[in-house]
């Protein structure tokens, strides 16, 4: 059994980035993810890599843009209000085809909100919160191990598609501590001939997203859209538990899926055949997996830490003739397994169509 280390979620993200070969980290203090910034401020110089605490999240995302343009693996981490500030930069990165990892440890919102874990940034993050026709792969960890693993995967996918990738966690996962298997460091980084490294022995490289001529810009966007189509085809990831004999499926991601896991076990003890489908990628969303389930299952219970955002995609996937109920908390309050169990019991009591 490989050695495990007890680690907080935020630290697992930082160490995951370092293992993935992150050469430049730029961050700004914001609870509940300050530990990432603090850890990186110590570890990145230790590794001889770039670290800057910036004057704002605007500067942080634009430094990620600069480092990515220079061909380096780069990352920033923030929480909901800061993530809002970074949307323009993320749109520029997608438009200029730059890889980069943006970690969003969500907290209660809107506004200053509070610092408890939440999932209220779902629309902004999974649907793309900046301007223009672009999408961003969203990876949603549900354990401290996944905080490390999905951060590493984020760097890989960012380089694979030359597009920013978001790791969408929340304050509960960020602060929680769990045993983690340390992964092997990535040694081979992809070559980037397009990068800004100085026009030595080659023609100049230009990185931009600006195209004044309306005739020339759509073809560029078309290239991006082709990438997002490829992401939908190749990068959908989700976890399915007890779906075989399930008559009701809970759909949940991140922290909410942990409470759902416990609720599923409790329901099964009461003899209720409940399954769980946990999307790991929020874009590309596992529509197909859900619509397949919908061919034989009628009841879907969506558990989320937001006010009915994630549920929209579940409804989109399963269709309007299925029963899709919502059990949720928002504003930084955790969702307990008992609450989900109660919703399960209520749902199976109601006759279909009742």
């Amino acid at each position, binding site marked *: 059994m490989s050695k495990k280390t007890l680690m907080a979620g935020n630290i697992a993200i930082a160490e995951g980035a370092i293992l993935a070969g992150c050469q*430049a980290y730029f961050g700004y203090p914001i609870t509940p993810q300050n530990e990432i910034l603090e850890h990186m401020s110590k570890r990145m110089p230790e590794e001889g890599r770039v670290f800057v605490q910036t004057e704002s999240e605007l500067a942080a995302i634009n*430094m990620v843009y*600069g480092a990515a*343009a220079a061909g380096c693996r780069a990352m920033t981490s923030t929480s909901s209000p800061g993530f809002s500030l970074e949307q323009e930069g993320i749109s520029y990165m997608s438009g200029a085809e730059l890889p980069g990892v943006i970690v969003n440890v969500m907290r209660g919102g809107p506004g200053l909100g509070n610092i408890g874990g939440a999932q209220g940034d779902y629309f902004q993050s999974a649907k793309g919160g900046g301007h223009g026709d672009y999408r961003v792969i969203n990876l949603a960890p549900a354990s401290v191990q996944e905080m490390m693993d999905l951060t590493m995967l984020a760097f890989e996918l960012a380089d694979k598609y030359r597009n920013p990738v978001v790791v969408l966690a929340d304050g509960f996962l960020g602060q929680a501590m769990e045993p983690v298997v340390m992964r092997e460091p990535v040694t081979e980084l992809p070559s980037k001939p397009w990068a800004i490294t100085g026009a030595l022995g080659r023609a100049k490289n230009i990185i931009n997203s*600006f195209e004044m001529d309306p005739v020339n810009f759509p073809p560029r966007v078309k290239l991006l859209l082709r990438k997002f189509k490829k992401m939908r085809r190749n990068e959908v990831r989700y976890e399915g538990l007890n779906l075989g004999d399930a008559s009701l499926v809970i759909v949940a991601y991140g922290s909410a899926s942990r409470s759902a896991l416990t609720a599923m076990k409790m329901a099964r003890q009461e003899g209720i055949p409940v399954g769980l489908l946990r999307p790991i990628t929020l874009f590309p969303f596992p529509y197909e997996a859900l619509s397949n389930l919908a061919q034989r299952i009628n009841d879907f219970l969506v558990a989320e830490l937001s006010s009915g955002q994630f549920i929209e995609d579940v409804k989109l996937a399963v269709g309007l003739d299925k029963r899709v109920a919502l059990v949720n908390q928002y504003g930084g309050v955790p969702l307990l397994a008992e609450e989900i169990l109660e919703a399960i019991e209520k749902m199976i009591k109601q006759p279909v169509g009742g």
Partner: protein
Amino acid sequence: MTKFSISELDTVLYHRPESLEDYPFHFCPGCGHGIVFRLIAEIVDELNIKERAVCVACVGCSVNSYHYFNFDGLESAHGRAPAVATAIKRCHPHLVPFTYQGDGDLAAIGTAEIVHACARGENITTIFVNNAVYGMTGGQMAPTTLVGMYSTSTPGGRKPSLSGYPIRVCEMLSTLDGTAYVARVSVHNPAAVRKTKQAIKLAFRTQLANLGMSLVEVLSPCPVNWRLEPVKALEWLVKHMLPQYPLGEFKVIEAVAALKKGDRLCTKK
């Protein structure tokens, strides 16, 4: 009229610098950007840093600057060029990134980025072209628009009671310890253009010697949005902008002064 060919024996006193693409500028007639671009290209040639120079463009009339230089270049979001350049320099210290920014880009939306790049003493160079208006968008008030000056968003002239006062960027930034060289120059006549070139060249040499942040503010005409003929625009610049924005060097740390002494000996043109 008799024609004669250029004899190869004739000495070239002035010609297009190599680092400038043979590509016509899109600027309006008499715009100062064209002069500053050419000076930068001359300096990149003279310092022989074409393989290391990186043009970090801003959003404004000079948004296409990376098309005009034939070395690496990239676009940055409005106001964020100093952050982009910071990352490039820290990732590849051998590169020579310079940000080319207008007054809207640097002194309005990008104020935090330029202040903190200076405060951190980033080893980058900023060329800040101040023409007192937002040119690309059609002549609105900029943070450097003079009191009483017309702009499309200060009809009847800028009134402090409504729109506050113009910002003197060099004076502000020279108080930050991270700055090694801060100077304000102008392009209102050939002598001033020569001084502009000297200042920009010294700024690049400051970066090459890793001495910290270098910034050169260039007062420049915007004939179309000032609603003046190019020649008249230069006269207006001298009469109205120079008093508000005095020329000179506002920060020259010792090490840069030493460079300057050496510079004076070998300045040809």
